[in-house]
């Protein structure tokens, strides 16, 4: 099967051969050769539009220099997920390029040029895979046509292979470098034929990430690493309570510290992703700025959220989900199902706020000058930096130049550019480039937290063990509260992943309970899949226990009861992943495990991918030791088995942190946690064996940055129950006393 994609048309992907002059002007590339751009329609993520429509948005640049060096641009942001290897590898595969001749450059912030750059929602591969391949294929067609012209033969008589075009008649070869400039004069093809799976050279292979050589010698530069002449350094402290204001600051002692340049008040900038408001010190090095910051005497007017207390708030959410709430969606007759039930199982599940805590704290350099503004930042969304700084500086977004650095982890945090906005304020204040580096404490106390949540499920079983009714009430402060602070609960569409979960339940009702936000809420890796996955996966296990069957059989039964033809694929893929997990973990033989061990299983569909996990634990008293995890992934065609595997390993590690211990606690409106001693993320000594398997199929590729988290926590809770009979319904299971 070969995929033929007609190009171009108004709403299809379009390939364009940029005139060299135009490209040089746009990108500053100084060598000749072939330059090719490709555009694709605008995409949306999480309901937010990520860019403006325009007719030509090339977002995959192929640049082959006259010496054959091939430069591929990655417009999406790299934070460790491996996108800057996976996408260029897809281009290189269709291009039949020699990977050793390829170098990769992170695209600067320019959505006109690269298309949407906001990197989240596990969407990069899902949306970019075909356009990237088309760019490579189109460039190859032009190289082949150039060679055919040189030899006076037809393109059909030539074949591309590993950076050469070969004349099939006589085996003559011309290198891509020799052909590049000639290829630039060839017409851009109207359509390209993409490779068949059997011919993939890089797609689906175990390709090392392109930057690991730089990482192991400390040469890769991150957001915190930008240096330039005249650079000043800053440290900041924020109002501990969202919405509070600065009452007074005594700068006297701080200004006396040698090396301090200025103390700057930063008012809250009330646009999404603007600064929460704080006071910063600018100095000639970061440490001096941090020391002087401690000498400030600050009084805050804490404002309306100063009594926020997560312990009380969680209890409030539980009450709200254990009582009738606002209807979100309904089908069938749930009251009838409950009235006729053999059993009704009821359970309430909760989860705490989470801090992303990437190892690299928020950091950026901004230099605001009279007629320019340049940014160097680790970011997931350079377009948002342009928008926020444009609003703040009253300039055009295109006039904000954003250099995207490697991000030392992000997990959703670096989607929001408050730290970049603050550096811009400081740069203006001291009229110099300023590097603002948040302390770990500020990162933990001034976040955009994963929602604290409560979910209540009531599910009915009939005599045959079929699940006949499902009531799902959720209450959590919504991400949408960032944009609309008056929201008093999660909007009904935030329950879409519940309503559309591929369980086959005829009588169903979902409700959203009151949950006003008292802090900033933000996307955190896997977002709703963390708590929805936990509720679905745990409830399935509880239902299995109540109906005296096993979890795999019960899940299969629920999926089989889904007669919605639109969900047939979801059902089949969920079941297949589950079956593979059961096989790999030896589910049917779990009775043979030692008495203090248990096996738990769960499967979750999120971000268009399917992941099943089987977790084996040993429980001794209160001590939970995770021994082994089998992760079964169905993300369609895998682009890069190495980074896909790494995403699952990472999901297990993050899943263990949030399941077992980490939780952001608020008291008197402010975060109590401050650093890794009281936000105890997983360390190496608790690392279990993780085995990752991929389902072999021809579905189109979907992303994996997030989908590993959904099934982990419930599989773990189910395993602990199997081992000990203790059911954990609250994340984290064993919070640290604060």
């Amino acid at each position: 099967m070969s995929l033929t994609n007609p190009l171009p048309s108004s709403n299809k992907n379009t390939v364009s051969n940029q005139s060299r002059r135009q490209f040089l002007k746009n990108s500053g590339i100084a060598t000749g050769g072939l330059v090719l751009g490709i555009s694709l329609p605008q995409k949306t993520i999480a309901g937010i539009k990520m860019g403006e429509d325009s007719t030509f948005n090339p977002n995959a640049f192929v640049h082959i220099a006259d010496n054959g060096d091939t430069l591929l641009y990655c417009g999406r942001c790299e934070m460790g997920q491996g996108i800057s290897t996976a996408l260029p590898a897809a281009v290189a595969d269709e291009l039949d390029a020699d990977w050793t001749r390829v170098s990769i450059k992170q695209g600067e912030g320019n959505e006109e040029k690269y298309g949407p750059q906001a990197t989240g929602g596990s969407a990069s591969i899902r949306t970019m895979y075909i356009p990237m391949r088309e760019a490579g294929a189109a460039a190859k067609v032009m190289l082949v046509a150039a060679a055919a012209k040189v030899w006076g033969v037809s393109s059909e008589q030539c074949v591309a292979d590993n950076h050469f075009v070969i004349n099939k008649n006589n085996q003559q070869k011309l290198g891509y470098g020799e052909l590049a400039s000639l290829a630039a004069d060839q017409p851009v093809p109207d359509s390209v034929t993409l490779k068949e799976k059997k011919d993939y050279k890089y797609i689906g292979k175990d390709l090392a990430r392109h930057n690991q050589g730089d990482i192991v010698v400390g040469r890769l530069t991150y957001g915190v690493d930008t240096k330039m002449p005249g650079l000043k350094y800053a440290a900041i402290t924020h109002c501990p309570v969202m919405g509070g204001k600065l009452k007074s600051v005594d700068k006297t002692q701080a200004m006396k510290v040698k090396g301090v340049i200025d103390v700057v008040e930063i008012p809250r900038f009330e646009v999404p992703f603007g600064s929460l408001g704080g006071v910063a010190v600018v100095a000639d090095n970061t440490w001096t700025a941090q020391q002087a910051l401690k000498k400030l005497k600050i009084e805050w007017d804490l404002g309306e959220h100063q009594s926020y207390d997560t312990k009380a708030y969680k209890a409030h959410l539980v009450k709200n989900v254990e009582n009738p709430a606002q209807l979100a969606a309904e089908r069938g007759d749930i009251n009838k199902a409950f009235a006729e039930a053999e059993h009704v199982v009821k359970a309430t599940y909760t989860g705490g706020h989470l801090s992303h805590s990437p190892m690299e704290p928020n950091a950026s350099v901004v230099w605001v000058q009279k007629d320019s503004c340049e940014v160097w930042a680790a970011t997931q969304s350079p377009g948002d930096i342009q928008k926020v700084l444009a609003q703040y500086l009253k300039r055009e977004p295109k006039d904000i130049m954003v250099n995207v650095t490697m991000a030392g982890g992000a997990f959703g945090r670096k989607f929001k550019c408050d730290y970049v906005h603050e550096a811009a304020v400081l740069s203006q204040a001291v009229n110099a480039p300023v590097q603002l580096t948040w302390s770990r404490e500020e990162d933990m106390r001034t976040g955009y937290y994963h929602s604290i949540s409560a979910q209540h499920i009531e599910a009915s079983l009939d005599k045959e063990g079929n699940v006949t009714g499902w009531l799902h009430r959720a209450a959590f402060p919504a991400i949408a509260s960032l944009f609309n602070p008056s929201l008093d609960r999660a909007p009904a569409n935030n329950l879409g992943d519940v309503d559309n979960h591929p369980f086959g339940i005829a009588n169903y009702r979902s409700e959203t309970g009151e949950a006003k936000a008292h802090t900033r809420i933000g996307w955190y890796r896997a977002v709703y899949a963390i708590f929805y996955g936990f509720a679905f996966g745990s409830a399935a296990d509880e239902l299995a226990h109540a109906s005296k069957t096993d979890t795999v059989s019960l899940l299969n039964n629920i999926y089989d009861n889904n007669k919605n033809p639109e969900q047939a694929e979801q059902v089949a893929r969920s079941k297949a992943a589950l079956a593979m997990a059961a096989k790999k973990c030896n589910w049917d033989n779990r009775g043979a495990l030692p008495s203090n061990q248990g096996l738990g299983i769960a499967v979750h569909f999120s971000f268009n991918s399917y992941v099943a996990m089987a977790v084996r634990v040993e429980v001794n008293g209160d001590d939970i030791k995770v021994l082994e995890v089998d992760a079964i992934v169905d993300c369609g065609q895998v682009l890069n088995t190495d980074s896909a595997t790494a995403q699952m390993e990472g999901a297990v590690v993050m899943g263990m942190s949030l399941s077992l211990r980490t939780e952001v606690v608020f008291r008197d409106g402010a975060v109590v946690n401050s650093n890794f001693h009281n936000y105890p993320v997983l360390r190496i000594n608790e690392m279990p064996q993780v085995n990752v398997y991929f389902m072999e199929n021809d579905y189109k590729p979907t992303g994996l940055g997030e989908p590993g988290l959904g099934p982990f926590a419930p599989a773990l809770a189910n395993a602990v129950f199997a081992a000990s009979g203790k059911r954990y319904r609250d994340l984290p299971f064993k919070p640290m006393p604060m």
Partner: protein
Amino acid sequence: MSQSIKINDKSYPIDVDGEMPLLWFLRDRLELTGTKFGCGMGLCGACTVHIDGQATRSCVMPVSAAAGKTITTIEGLSENADHPLQKAWIANKVPQCGYCQAGQIMNAASFLATNKKPSSEDIDNAMQGNICRCGTYQRIKQAVVDAADEMYKEA
């Protein structure tokens, strides 16, 4: 007369407040940015360097306390990126974001200098001060084992 400090075989005068942690002397004064800031409290290990061969958290070590000593940072660990740990890190494709990895490698290098055949438990004990939020621990463990094998293989 200012004190001096030897870093990656080069001598530098300590021309800052002696209380400044070595981390910030490296990063902001010398612009050796391979050593990372992670927590500022010696809790995460991202800032690990060697002082006279011993893994040390540079974020809590005043630069004056390192005066006269020999410092090695990730930039100076090997001439050609060929320390067995660096090679093992690449062979095992350890890094994800890579931010913590300089600290991980420096910590492992100091540990392997004295432990020729580390057990799984030895590695856990030696490496648990270094946090990786991306979750590369499984590969770190394998890379440490491989590097130990490479360093101490019998001739």
